[in-house]
Structure formats: C-alpha cells, structure tokens
C-alpha cells in the first residue's frame, strides 16, 4: 500500500534522523582527535566507570538486604565499595565539570550535551541524598529527621517524605537510578554525535563554520 508520496511513518523519520546524526562510525569511533590525548579528558569516562560500580554494588546490596550489609564481613565490604564508588563518582564528575566549564564545552551546538550533564549532576545529588536516608542505621535516622524540617519548611514534606523509608528506598533503588541512567545515556550519545569539544585556542573548521 505504501507509495513514495505517502507520509513517512515516525519510525522512518527516527531511522533517517539516527543515520544522519549518529552513524555507527560516530557511535563507536576507534580514533579521537589529537587534543583528546590529555588527562583532563579521562574524567568523563572515570565518572561512567564509577557509575557502573555503583550500580553493580547497589544491585548486590539490594538482593542481599540490610541485615547482610550491616552484619557480615562481605556485606560491610560491598557496602563500603558502594559508598566509596559514590565518593569517587562525585569527585570525578566535579573535575569533569570544571574541565568542561573552562573549555566552554557547550560550543559547536553542544548545548544539549551541557544541559544533560547538568541534569545528571543534579539528579545524582538527589540520588545520593536518598541513599543516605536508606542506610537503615542511626545516621540515616538523624539525617532524615533533620531533612524533614527543611522539606516541611518549603511545603513539600507531604509529597516528599524523607522519614518514609519505603518511599525513599524506592526512589533510591528504582526511580532515580532509571532517571540518571537515561540522562547519562542521552549525554553519552550526544557526546558521540557531536564529538569531543576542541580546545578554545585550537583552530577548528567545524567551529569556524558554526559558532
């Protein structure tokens, strides 16, 4: 039934857009420009590696449960691994942010890459805070009772109830990780589609054409 004059299906538009903006040689490149050979370009992938470790240890903790990670040696180890991978995740992400800020990485139509990075940063903070609330120890009890006053004072305590362990646990292990995962995926795909931003002082044909 299809003819050449028929209106294109959404899946056709999606395929053509994908092929135009992110062909497979851009998606899986085996070379990078010379300026990428610098330590400052490693912090993005270091952040991703930390995120992978966070997800892996987080899944392990979820399957074993609180009595395991509070009461066994392996549980303590995995719990610490989860905690420290979060610390390094934020350290690497902040250094990545500084590097990209000072090289004005939103140049060359990379605004969405910058915005998704910022969203991932804010979302990660929310995820980390809910993590502190679900440790199931006196620390999390103290933090939640301090935090509830803050949320109540701005009028959102009835919707976002930090003393509600079930709500915080589901946000931490299900909702927020999915959000972070999707934003991170979009961020990485945008980096692939647009390429790594060149240094400000580098002469670049692409940037010369579209500032």
């Amino acid at each position, binding site marked *: 039934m299809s003819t050449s004059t028929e209106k294109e299906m959404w899946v056709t538009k999606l395929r053509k857009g994908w092929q135009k903006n992110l062909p497979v040689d851009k998606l899986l490149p085996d070379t990078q420009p*010379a300026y990428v*050979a*610098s*330590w*400052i370009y*490693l*912090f993005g992938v270091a952040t991703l590696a930390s995120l992978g470790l966070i997800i892996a240890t987080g899944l392990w903790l979820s399957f074993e449960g609180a009595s395991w990670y509070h009461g066994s040696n392996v549980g303590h180890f995995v719990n610490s691994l989860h905690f420290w991978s979060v*610390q390094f995740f934020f*350290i690497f992400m*902040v*250094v990545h942010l*500084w*590097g990209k800020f000072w090289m004005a990485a939103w140049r060359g139509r990379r605004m969405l890459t910058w915005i998704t990075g910022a969203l991932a940063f804010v979302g990660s903070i929310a995820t980390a805070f809910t993590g502190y609330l679900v440790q199931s120890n006196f620390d999390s009890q103290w933090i939640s009772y301090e935090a509830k006053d803050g949320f109540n004072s701005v009028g959102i305590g009835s919707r976002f109830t930090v003393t509600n362990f079930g709500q915080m646990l589901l946000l931490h292990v299900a909702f927020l990780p999915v959000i972070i995962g999707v934003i991170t995926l979009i961020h990485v795909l945008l980096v692939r589609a647009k390429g790594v931003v060149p240094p400000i002082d580098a002469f670049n044909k692409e940037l010369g054409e579209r500032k």
Partner: protein
Amino acid sequence: MGIFDHFMNLRAVYIHLGWFQISITNLLVIIGMLVLFGLALFLPFPGNKKEGQK
C-alpha cells in the same frame, strides 16, 4: 580494624571563619579535587608524542 574504628568514631573538626564553616574532611576533599584538576592539566599524557605527524 582498631585504628579505623577509632578514626571513624572521632567527631568532625570544623574550620569556622565568620559566616563560613567547613569540616576539615570536606576541605581536604575539595583541595584534593583541585590538585587532581591541576595535575590533569599539566601532567604529560603517556604516548602523546604527536604520532599523527610522522
């Protein structure tokens, strides 16, 4: 474990200058990130000998 137990159970020490207050631990982490940033900018990257120009 004894040393770590003792270390982890110490109270946080804070620097307090007027309106500004920060724990020594957080200050050290921030200084560490700045050092890492500086090293990343200035340390030579291994294998970066402009091989593309040969």
